């Protein structure tokens, strides 16, 4: 198992969370802290960049649901980029793709976010 790595970039009201390593239920602290930092700084749109992600199990998918609910409650928009075909299929399987906008590149996600 690799550790979860969360990096954060800001461009106006858009924040990008760069997710690296493994996403499992143990990643909750890191992922939620990264999201809180992004939104506490005023971001209304958060892009999840999965291009550095190495592994995700069902606990990780559960965290994404929790993150989505948190974003919906806070009135934030959640976008995703950097997903391989395999992880796109997992988001389709779990029907998370109905709630997260998926983009082919970070540039496309930034454009969709209006940044």
């Amino acid at each position, binding site marked *: 198992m690799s550790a979860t790595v969360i990096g954060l970039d800001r461009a106006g009201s858009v924040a990008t969370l760069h997710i690296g390593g493994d996403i499992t239920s143990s990643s909750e602290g890191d992922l939620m802290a990264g999201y809180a930092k992004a939104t506490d700084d005023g971001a209304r749109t958060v892009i999840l960049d999965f291009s550095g992600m*190495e*592994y995700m199990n069902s*606990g990780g998918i559960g965290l994404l*649901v929790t993150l989505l*609910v948190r974003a*919906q409650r806070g009135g934030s928009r959640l976008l995703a980029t950097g997903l*391989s075909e395999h992880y796109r*299929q997992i988001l389709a*399987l779990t*029907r998370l793709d109905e709630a997260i906008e998926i983009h082919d590149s970070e540039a496309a996600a930034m454009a969709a976010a209006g940044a």
Partner: protein
Amino acid sequence: MTPGRDTGNWARPVDKLSAAGVAGAKVDSVSGKRVSGPLQGFGQLWQKTFRVRLDGSTMTPEEVIATWKERFPTFWPKSATFYAPLAGIAPGEVALLDLSPAPGSPIKLSTGVMVIYADEQSFTFMTPQGHTLSAWITFSAERDGDVTVAQAQALERPSDPFDEMAYLLGGNRMNNAFWKETIANMARHMGAAEPVVETQIVCIDKRRQWRQVRNLRHSIMLRTARHTLTAPVRWLRRS
């Protein structure tokens, strides 16, 4: 991104579920349905964790999960039946279930689950449309010092307004008791003499998703009620 480390652990997406790989169930109300997770449900979103320390057991987390998969139906309370897929609990397989809507009820709700994820230390089920809960539940085991700890963690929303009402009027309590009994049965089988099941229940989202009210058209609860109420008519037509 490294491809494939978890590829074999996940089911492939399917448009419609098929319970063709299940034997023994009288009713298949799952084939042709889609899966429905916590985002597709109607009611409040709950996270429930049932955790037990397997004190007295020498089994590793991998041995616990292998045994749990193999003997899953035997740990369920007597009020419910789990018809396991012939291929076992593996990614993409569908199982059928008969559940009691109330303690002692002669009526059964027939539904099912899809195995969406399975590895050596965990496996996850997702419910189909029509199930009273739009949910997934993950069963896992891990080492805590010298002891193996097993848990079931559900993320669930009642699927439609009737399911939400039933949940608030006792379904929630019944569901909690069901999983506590299941986990205790499993723990005893694994060698824990006096298992103590710790429960943590958190409401993650208090809002109801009114845009999902149309889930009613899939409701097994309404279909079962209709079927039960029209039973005399069917009986008269046959006689």
